């Protein structure tokens, strides 16, 4: 199979669509025959990344790349960035506001979940945006 690449827009504050990109990603991975266990890991990561863009950023996108023996999931947004990445990666740390918390977000587990469920987790952030690259070996 040739390498494939999909890009999905994710909009700030768009709680109503929250999870729809991850749902498309899940459907596609299923179609191309990726095993259940790996789909679950990727979908957990994409959902957490998608919701973080919606809740914490000005908007961005998710990119899914399927390579020979590797799947890449890339989340990138337009800012405002994460000041202290080490702190943000600490389980339980969250700056989510009351609106997000009322809906059950803000446990401070999203980034730790992404790290735990990917084989390789790379994150960079500056005021212009946050970039997260997650790799999975097929």
């Amino acid at each position, binding site marked *: 199979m040739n390498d494939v690449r999909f890009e999905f827009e994710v909009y700030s504050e768009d*709680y109503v669509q929250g*999870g729809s990109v991850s749902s498309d990603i899940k459907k596609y991975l299923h179609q191309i025959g990726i095993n259940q266990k790996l789909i679950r890991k990727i*979908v957990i990561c994409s*959902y957490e990344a998608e919701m973080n863009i919606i809740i914490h950023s000005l908007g961005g996108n998710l990119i899914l790349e399927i390579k020979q023996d590797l799947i890449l999931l890339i989340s990138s947004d337009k800012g405002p960035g994460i000041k202290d990445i080490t702190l943000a990666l600490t389980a339980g740390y969250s700056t989510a506001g009351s609106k997000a918390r009322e809906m*059950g977000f803000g446990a401070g*587990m999203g980034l730790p979940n992404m790290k735990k469920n990917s084989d390789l987790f790379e994150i960079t952030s500056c005021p212009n945006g946050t970039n997260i690259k997650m790799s999975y070996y097929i």
Partner: protein
Amino acid sequence: MKVKDLLKNISFKLITGENLDKEIGGVYTGDLLSWVMSHAKKDDAWMTVQTHLNIVAVAKLLDLACIIIVENAEIESETVEKANSENITLIQTHYNSFEIMKSMLVKDD
């Protein structure tokens, strides 16, 4: 136990869903979505007081058997619509989590 077996008890009210032959593989309780995402398993019945429409996405992504809204938490109409269109089984009950577990485990025959 299947979803339809749960519904034999009149304390459980079916709000949405058609696939009632689905087997309930386990139970997960939680209201923090990131915890649910990483710990709930395929075919679990998920008990929660969260009623915002994002619970539908979580149930769908994890292939949960059903969502049980506990203690008669009021369900937003957007959530019902979304659950309907995604064919997610949504059940409401006045029971709390303990009472639900008791009703699932204790056979009254």
